């Protein structure tokens, strides 16, 4: 088609048809590239999320044996993947609670001199029911149910519902 052709388009119109084609190719390339990036980033992000570890131990664990604990003492036991604290009070009854401090997750211990549960990291103190008394802990420790069967002390999560 030459400019002398009476049916010729004006120059601006002649330039316009290649542009959408170019844009189409660019969109195709860009889209393909984007799809590739997504196809690689998605598995990597999924990979980075650690799989859920099985909560070992389930509901109820043996925290210790009768006679193992003196009066006014405590011990740490495994409750699933987390530590628990079993206490024998001066009056002889057993208490059990989570041993993970509600402040910044240090493991707490029983202090026989204070007769309190104490966290060494920031001097947090709880009473024998797990209630936060002083220091930074914002919440009480989760209490567990204790049952003595034979000479084994069973501890399980409280069912509040």
């Amino acid at each position, binding site marked *: 088609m030459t400019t002398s052709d009476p049916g010729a388009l004006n120059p601006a119109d002649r330039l316009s048809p290649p542009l959408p084609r170019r844009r189409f190719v660019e969109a195709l390339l860009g889209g393909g590239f984007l799809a*590739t990036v997504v*196809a690689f980033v998605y*598995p*990597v992000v*999924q*990979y*980075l*999320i*650690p*799989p859920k570890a099985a909560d070992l131990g389930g509901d109820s664990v043996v925290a210790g044996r009768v006679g193992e604990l003196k009066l006014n003492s405590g011990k740490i036991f495994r409750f699933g993947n987390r530590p628990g604290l079993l206490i024998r009070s001066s009056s002889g009854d057993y208490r059990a609670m989570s041993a993970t401090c509600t402040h910044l997750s240090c493991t707490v211990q029983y202090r026989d001199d204070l007769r309190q549960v104490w966290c060494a990291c920031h001097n947090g103190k709880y009473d024998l029911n797990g209630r936060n008394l002083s220091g930074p802990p914002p919440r009480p420790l989760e209490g567990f149910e204790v049952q003595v069967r034979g000479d084994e002390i069973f501890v399980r999560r409280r069912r509040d519902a």
Partner: protein
Amino acid sequence: MGPLSDVRNWLDQRLGWDDLIAPLREKTVPLHKLSYWYFLGGITLFLFVIQVLTGILLLLYYRPGANEAFESVQYIMTQVRFGWLIRSIHSWSANLMIFTAFAHMFSVLFLKAYRKPRELTWVSGVILLFLVMGFGFSGYLLPWNTLAFFATKVGTEIAGQVPLIGKPMMIFLRGGEEVTGATLSRFFGFHVAVLPGLATLLILLHVLLVQRLGISVPPKLEVQWAANPSARREMKFFPNFLLRELMAWYVALGVLGALAALFPWNLGVKADPFVPAPAGIKPEWYFLFMFQTLKLIPPKVWFIDGEVLGVLAFGLVGLLWLLLPFFESDQPSHPKRWITGFAVFALAYVAGMTLYGHLAK
């Protein structure tokens, strides 16, 4: 002025960015019918980067140690989402990288790109190939499966055949007299710290040399172009060649993804030092030509042990290979014929012995 060019200007004022990339703008790539071979080094580099990235990902879950290594790889492959894919890509990319490194080396050899002044580029490249094989050897043990265990036993035993320094070297590699968890700890250290450090330094040197010396053309063409400068054809590196190289990387990525997804790498059976070696046990394909050669040498040649002779011969050939450019003539019009012959023989020998080793019972 968009925000992007503002950032650019800001950086340029502080880093002298434009001066820094100026050589890249002037860099050209010679154009001739064998120009395609120039892509191989870049593809090898790309696969190395993939190795680093997937290697870091595997490190998030892998645990070295005879009691944990196999289980942790099993965990990666069965529990971690896309873990099987990441490990498969790492294994496939390793094999492809060794293949492209070999192909790159032979292309350099046949195009005679190692000639003066590029001797050091060749030397650094050959050392890199040795390092890459070291990566392969050390990485192979890490899943702690039966095949890996025996491959490492045999491989370190062969290293122990070297006269005088062999035995201490074997004990150093194994971390003791036997292949144990101590060997695994060492190989892990070599694989994720020592070798990557050395390889990164050498790659930087290698690429810097390529950048500094420009890209070589085959001697015949060099003579022609010197006689008739107007016949010289070249392409700008940036962006013309780089975009083509990116396309090659994209294809490599596609091949890699397809291989990893369609043929996930096996884990095998956990290593047990107290079971017999399985029948038909062989090293990885890139060690096969040496393995097969050692198998063919008779146990005693004259008064020397066959194994010792084989190890010494490979050591000597390796050294000659490393120093090959120093035997080449300075005149592009008269390259040494025997080097070409040696290169052809080496390629045929490696390919033939690999195939033989693969098919042999």
